[in-house]
């Protein structure tokens, strides 16, 4: 089973998030970088499938040279091959991103492509679906449970929606986008880290193209930040709390 996992380098935002003075980027002077929890789970899921059925996990990212850090993180977790689609710093839109990934999928040949349901930063919710249409493959998104058949020719993907479980049976090859909760990602092992450090990274530079949706500026939402009215301390506050609940109309 040849599996490709697509990850994206994004700032690790902690207590607050700020934008650069020109309003174009997240201010990353004080932050590290990581991939989103959805994508960590995608890597883990792919490794688990190949542990069971054999095969190789390749990990791909589209981003700057620095994104090699995120590829090595995935290699340390068990991916065997890494591909950097190197950008010149410009933000690729979802159409160009899907086209660049499709190019790699077609030239290498995969049975399954896993992505996170949405990128943590841009939240476009569409790269996996656009990729599937480029390839002519079936796609299921937001998946929280995946079982690949032992023959390797199909899978059943599940998610929950409004209290109903949805099961999707797909033939392979297919594209699946996953959500956090599908598994608990492992911690990298020491041998894994050492292997990741030495691994080769394959590189290419896809073409950037303009898209119909153009970012003008980012801003932090005008905050309704205030300090909460303290109703009291400990159990002594309970009568006041009950009064407020009644006032809010939830009793």
């Amino acid at each position, binding site marked *: 089973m040849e599996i490709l996992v697509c990850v994206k380098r994004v700032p690790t935002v902690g207590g607050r998030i700020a934008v650069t003075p020109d309003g174009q980027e997240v201010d990353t002077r004080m932050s590290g970088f990581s991939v989103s929890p959805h994508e960590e789970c995608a890597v883990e899921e792919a490794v688990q499938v190949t542990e069971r059925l054999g095969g190789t996990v390749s990990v791909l990212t589209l981003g700057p040279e620095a994104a090699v850090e995120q590829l090595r993180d995935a290699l340390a977790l068990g991916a065997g091959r890494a591909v950097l689609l190197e950008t010149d710093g410009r933000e690729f839109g979802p159409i160009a991103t899907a086209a660049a990934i499709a190019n790699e999928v077609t030239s290498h040949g995969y049975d399954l492509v896993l992505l996170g349901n949405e990128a943590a930063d841009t939240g*476009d919710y569409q790269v996996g679906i656009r990729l599937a249409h480029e390839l002519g493959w*079936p796609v299921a998104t937001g998946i929280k449970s995946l079982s690949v058949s032992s023959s390797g020719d199909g899978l059943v993907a599940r998610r929950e929606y409004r209290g109903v479980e949805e099961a999707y049976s797909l033939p392979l090859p297919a594209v699946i986008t996953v959500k956090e909760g599908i598994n608990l990602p492992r911690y990298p092992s020491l041998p894994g880290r050492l292997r990741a450090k030495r691994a080769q990274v394959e590189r290419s530079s896809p073409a950037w193209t303009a898209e*119909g949706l153009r970012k003008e500026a980012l801003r932090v939402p005008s905050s309704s930040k205030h300090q909460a009215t303290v109703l009291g301390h400990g*159990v002594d506050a309970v009568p006041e709390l009950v009064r407020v609940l009644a006032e809010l109309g939830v009793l």
Partner: protein
Amino acid sequence: MTVLCLVELDGAAPADASLRAVTLARSLGGDVGAVLFAEADAVPGAALAEYGVTDAYVVEPAGVDGYAPQAWARALAGLADERGATAVLAAGTDRGNEVLAHLGAITGLPMAANCTLVTPDGGRTHRLVRHRWAGLLLEEAVLEAPVALFTVATDSVAPVPAQAPAPARVHVYKPELAEGDLRVRAAESPAGAGGVSLATARVVVGGGRGVGGPDGFAPLEELAELLGGVVGVSRVVTSEGWRPHRQQVGQTGTKITPELYLACGISGAIQHIAGCAGARHMIAINTDPGAPILAHADYAVIGDLHQVVPALVEALRAR
């Protein structure tokens, strides 16, 4: 001028998230056509008309049976073409984002996910504001396309009825599907938990690291039941395996829009705030008066949830 809005049903009524999308659709000017996948006699025409829908286009199960995202998108593409729609939108739900992304791929047009404001700016241009980082940042953007495709953030635009509603006309639409459109289709079965869904609950009682472990949730469950709500949790709770991931509120969990969010022992990491900022009112119970959650809550009780919550349960039972 016509804009089309995918409307999802919650039981017999339009889903709350869809009414928010319809409210935004109305602000674009022109006729608002709702597109539903249901039996024609199950279309909640009066409820839709109240929110300013002028026409309801219904795709019956004979056309597309069940949830098949690519087939739903194909139907929207056909209708948009037939009606000369200038915009097609949906609620920013799992289904709404998925169907609109398929529509973007089918038509080759850009799609803007989770918008909070969209304004026509002449010709093929719309100016918009959309969520990034699940709403922790806003992006101001320009969308240039013959048909504007976008979804509406589920926790930002309030659903507002129209001022002078008129009855909605109901049309049955038979889509022309392409090969492969029905290849991916949901087989649906009731999920384990059942009951009130976190996304639509009127009251959510939140539990975080302060709950202390998997055994600490019983008083929170009891309180949630008394308030007719459900329990939601922070990311640390699910990554520790104390509670299932489906109960997680936050950027990588569920976004909630309750009347009241009662956050117990939750410090308030921004990824959690991204999931609960749509709550109408927020009360925090926390031992730390400096916890970030207090900057987002309306009210706070400074104290240990293990004492405050059982005492609150007792007080509510005594009423």
